[in-house]
């Protein structure tokens, strides 16, 4: 649930009532749909499980670290990201057509969807609340540097900021810069460094 600006007890109480009403509505809808044979409750369980346990930003981190450590893979990834990402077993819903954009000392990339909340699900999972918020969707294109400051990231004036507004079915993954001092790290340790936000573009990979 989006963080509320008003933290008064009355407000929270209203919100709780409203939420329990939503819980009941969802339960009633599911019961109706199951009784009509329109949805299989086991399929719903499987769908929830897929996004809670199988499909998330660890997938994207594997892509990033493979690109950092395997120049031939990186070349394939930059040329045809959909195929290169599928090599690792990630494909499909909301990542049917992938493009990877690379951060460099001269370029910082940031991904948004101003019209809804398009996001590369196969590699990052479901989007966080802030990515879907009106604040992010409205400001990422007009004030990307201000938005990045709110994430604690100051991009110098001589570094170009490129914002990718996901208006079609192309989904974007940022390839963050590999920090210095990580030359001797294992693949697993490198993957730990690559957070979700570094692949959206709201953070840089921190040196260990």
């Amino acid at each position, binding site marked *: 649930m989006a963080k509320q600006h008003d933290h008064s007890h009355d407000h929270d109480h209203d919100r709780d009532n409203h939420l329990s009403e939503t819980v009941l509505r*969802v339960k009633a809808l599911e019961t109706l749909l199951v*009784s009509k044979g329109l949805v299989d409750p086991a399929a719903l369980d499987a769908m929830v499980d897929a*996004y809670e346990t199988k499909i998330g930003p660890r997938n994207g981190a594997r892509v990033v670290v493979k690109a950092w450590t395997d120049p031939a893979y990186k070349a394939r990834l930059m040329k045809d990201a959909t195929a290169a990402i599928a090599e690792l077993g990630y494909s499909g819903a909301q990542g049917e057509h992938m493009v990877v954009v690379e951060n460099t000392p001269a370029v910082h990339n940031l991904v948004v969807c101003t019209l809804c909340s398009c996001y590369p699900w196969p590699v990052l999972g479901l989007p966080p609340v802030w990515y879907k918020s009106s604040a992010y969707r409205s400001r990422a294109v007009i004030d990307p540097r201000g938005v990045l400051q709110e*994430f604690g990231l100051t991009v110098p004036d001589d570094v170009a900021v490129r914002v990718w507004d996901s208006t079609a079915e192309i989904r974007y993954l940022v390839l963050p810069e590999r920090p210095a001092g990580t030359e001797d790290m294992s693949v697993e340790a490198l993957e730990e460094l690559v957070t979700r936000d570094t692949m959206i573009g709201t953070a840089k990979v921190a040196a260990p």
Partner: protein
Amino acid sequence: MNGVHDMGGMHGFGPVEPEANEPVFHAPWEGRVLAIRRALGAWRKWNIDAGRHSIETLPPADYLRMSYYEKWLASAIKLALGAGLITQHELETGQRDPSVPVATPPLTADKVMPAILKGGPTHRETTARPRFEPGEAVRAQNINPKGHTRLPRYVRGRQGTIERDHGAHVFPDSNSKFEGENPQYLYTVRFAARELWGEAANPDDAVYLDLWEEYLDVA
């Protein structure tokens, strides 16, 4: 449509508020809504573009007030009613109409992962030649369609440069109305931040959008 969903460039929504250690779902009902909407989609009574339009056409005040999954719930109900999968009476009583035979769900648990991994690609083969090529200057049309469109207001009438050609993709404006896929070339178009937002913007910054051929003119 010039809806409240088209919020690129708007002010007044406050700061972005990231949440530390955010869970995938904040409550179990959110996951159920995601799964219900996708499982209903397996009936193929609508497409992704019609689905997006059903959210855009929520009353603007509701759109801004509702959370993402509240919008998905409202949309799932709207789409299911519109497609005749359920009736208003069934929704209000919670009881199925006994005169309608019980159906067999197209999406079963064993088909969930294969369906996710397959997705719904929108690229289509075409014999048409692309009208534009990378490096070419283009101008986004100043159009105001009342239906679904993926041409945001903040680039209409603005000049950009073709960055990349993605081949032909399903055209959302027609597909959302069930008037056919009308596949046409899709391009990544680069707009300089100064072209969009004026001289206060950094001269090297840019915004890239994926725009269909029909949205573009030669600059």
